[in-house]
């Protein structure tokens, strides 16, 4: 089944060299071979059935074929040995700590601007800068409670940070569901492989949310605020609410009265302390932000400002995941923590800078151009695959709105074997670990490994036809 497997000169997660699996993969590799094509196909059908029965779906916008889809799943797990993971974990903790300090700094003293570490024009020109948050104190000075940081591995196997998702990162429900399905499909393998558990994530999330309640002595009323059933991550919103045992609400279920937030219930109004909001800043409060929004709660910003309700993530964290600010995260780590960054960035050209822009325009054919404020892989240009016309169009857009674009060299993501028909083929992957910032910072062991489903493709976003696989962080003893 691995006979025709090609390494293509890429970094392969499973194989050290052709036919030789890495030591920590031997158990899984052996098991896959022993099972054989027939049994694997059967388990795959089992897994598909699990997903379909549980209604684990996501929504693709602008897709005419049908809105809700099953998230494609690959059975072969991705393994991360304990030593590797501990470095990743340390790096992520360092990063979210610096990002939180950055948010607080930008909305208060702005020392990073005064010290000229970051060009103020980049901050003041950012769409996601919320001036309304200037001078506002957020509970316990935490801005980013939930962060999803995208990691990739280059041709040498080095982990690089591709982006930080500091607004409302999604995908964690698929991680939990993938694991549940894998446990059902490969029960014995789990027992032997010593995989670290991830099932405590909803509990940790709940703790992080309780941590910011304005009424710490009482049992806080926590809700998950969703934009509604048409949102691409609605499944996740309902999943997390259910797992945490809290209410799932829409904006119309909440109201402001006398500077508190209340939830309409069948027994009257109930005061709400913490809102895990999966509604963007823009739509959160029609009084403060977009007046045409029906998804938010009119007046919530005033309640928030007075400290009578907590929001996770805080308003204004978009400034920390603006792609033109991303190149400065290593500088933030040095500035705020006086440490060297543990996880490096991908080299990035900021089109707002004249010299960078010049370089980008001259090297469009070998760069990936990304808009600074989009997520989900929308609006990108893969320079090496694009037609001359597409490149020309992007060049014009970069010239007219340079602040809105950055460019990066193409990183050859690492590949991982996946099942294609009745054999294995390499597919590119990335990793999105989830980090929670509450009383302390906790990183879920593993995260969402996204897979490009097309051979050779570098785009793993689920909205662009990517799939996922289970991620196994191994316990210490296995690597001793």
């Amino acid at each position: 089944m691995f006979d025709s497997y090609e390494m293509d000169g890429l970094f392969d997660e499973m194989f050290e060299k052709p036919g030789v699996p890495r030591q920590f993969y031997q158990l899984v590799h052996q098991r896959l071979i022993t099972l054989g094509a027939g049994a694997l196909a059967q388990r795959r059908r089992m897994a598909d059935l699990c997903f379909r029965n549980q209604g684990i779906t996501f929504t693709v916008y602008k897709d005419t074929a049908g809105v809700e889809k099953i998230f494609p799943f690959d059975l072969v797990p991705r393994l991360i040995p304990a030593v590797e993971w501990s470095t990743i974990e340390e790096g992520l903790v360092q990063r979210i700590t610096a990002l939180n300090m950055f948010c607080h700094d930008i909305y208060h003293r702005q020392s990073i601007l005064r010290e000229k570490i970051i060009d103020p024009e980049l901050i003041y020109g950012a769409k996601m800068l919320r001036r309304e948050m200037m001078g506002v104190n957020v509970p316990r000075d935490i801005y980013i409670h939930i962060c999803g940081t995208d990691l990739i591995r280059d041709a040498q196997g080095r982990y690089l940070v591709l982006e930080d998702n500091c607004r409302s990162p999604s995908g964690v429900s698929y991680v939990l569901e993938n694991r549940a399905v894998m446990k059902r499909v490969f029960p014995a393998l789990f027992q032997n492989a010593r995989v670290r558990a991830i099932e405590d994530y909803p509990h940790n999330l709940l703790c992080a949310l309780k941590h910011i309640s304005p009424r710490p002595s009482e049992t806080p009323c926590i809700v998950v605020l969703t934009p509604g059933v048409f949102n691409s991550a609605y499944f996740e919103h309902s999943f997390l609410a259910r797992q945490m045992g809290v209410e799932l609400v829409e904006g119309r279920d909440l109201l402001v009265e006398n500077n508190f937030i209340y939830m309409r219930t069948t027994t009257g109004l109930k005061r709400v302390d913490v809102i895990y909001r999966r509604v963007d800043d823009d739509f959160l409060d029609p009084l403060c932000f977009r007046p045409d929004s029906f998804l938010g709660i009119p007046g919530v910003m005033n309640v928030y400002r007075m400290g009578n309700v907590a929001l996770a993530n805080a308003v204004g964290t978009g400034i920390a995941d603006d792609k033109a600010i991303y190149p400065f995260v290593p500088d933030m780590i040095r500035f705020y923590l006086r440490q060297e960054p543990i996880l490096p960035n991908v080299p990035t050209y900021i089109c707002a800078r004249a010299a960078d822009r010049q370089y980008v325009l001259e090297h469009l054919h070998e760069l990936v151009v990304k808009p600074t404020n989009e997520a989900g892989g929308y609006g990108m240009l893969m320079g090496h695959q694009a037609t001359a016309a597409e490149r020309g169009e992007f060049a014009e857009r970069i010239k007219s709105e340079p602040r809105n674009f950055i460019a990066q060299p193409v990183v050859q993501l690492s590949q991982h074997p996946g099942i294609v028909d009745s054999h294995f083929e390499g597919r590119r992957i990335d990793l999105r670990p989830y980090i929670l910032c509450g009383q302390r910072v906790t990183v879920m062991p593993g995260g969402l490994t996204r897979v490009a489903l097309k051979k050779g493709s570098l785009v793993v976003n689920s909205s662009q036809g990517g799939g996922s696989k289970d991620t196994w962080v191994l316990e210490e003893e296995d690597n001793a």
Partner: protein
Amino acid sequence: MLLRTTHKTRLSYSSLIGETVMELRMAPRHERNQHRLAFDLAVGPATEVRSYFDWLGNTVHVFSIGGFHDAIEIVATSVVQTTARPGLIEKLVDIFPLGPLDDYALADYLRFDMLVCDSPALTDFVQKLRPRGEARLAEVVGQIMAAINRDFTYQGGVTNAASPVSEMLGHGRGVCQDFAHLMIATLRKLGVPARYVSGYIHAGRQSYRGAAQSHAWCEVYFPSAGWLPFDPTNNCMVGEHFVKVGLGRSYRDVPPHKGVFRGFADENIAVEVLTEELPEVSNRSVGERFTPLGIPVYRQSARGAALRWALDEQVQQQQQQQNADRPVTDKIR
């Protein structure tokens, strides 16, 4: 000068509404040339009013009204002591064009937005005024102010609170908000930071445009002296008969009132502004206080049938915005 301003706003609705949340920017600023001695805010239906400073240093009062109601009344009364700064403008040494600015936050006052927007018409307008070579900034600002005052007709009812500056550039007419926006846009186009001020003007025995209503003007940044106020509607430096309330990048940052409610209703706004000069202010009236006004709220049973909207989920309306010296009953929707 000791000035008392009474700003009455009455919002009435064709049917019952509920869950109103409102923000007011009606409290005069407390600054170097203007001391706020008293501020009384009366709101009805009776509710709890809280206040905070927004990011621009404006005092914002916020309140919500939970029960059903068909009218809201707001009376903001202030007493401020203002001082004039005569002769300042002649002493300014700043040269146009400005060099690099010392404070990066000034970038906010150089950027265009939805109301203070750039357009080909603005480019043409600025082209005519752009000085050749170096000039005294104070003179350039004075010429721009005079040109706007001369070339545009002061007329109500043509533009509304949401009109971008390009509208007045098109038809040549507008009110103080439009005059202020145009002066701001012109200066920004020339690289001079400028910002929007809302407030009141006390006419006394003189005839000022914009008296007995909300007024608006602009402030211009002079590196040697900081922000200085100019009123293009009246073609003058702002003096002691002006009361400064809100400060922002454009009108959008400082509407006197702004609100959202639930319900289907037509809205009618009536605004009255009265300014008077006081000989003195008594100790008793100094301070800040909130007073409830006797506007009724209804329980659902009072007019049950009319309240079918209460069950409808998508019924949420923005209150109209009263803008500076607009005829008091103009309708946007």
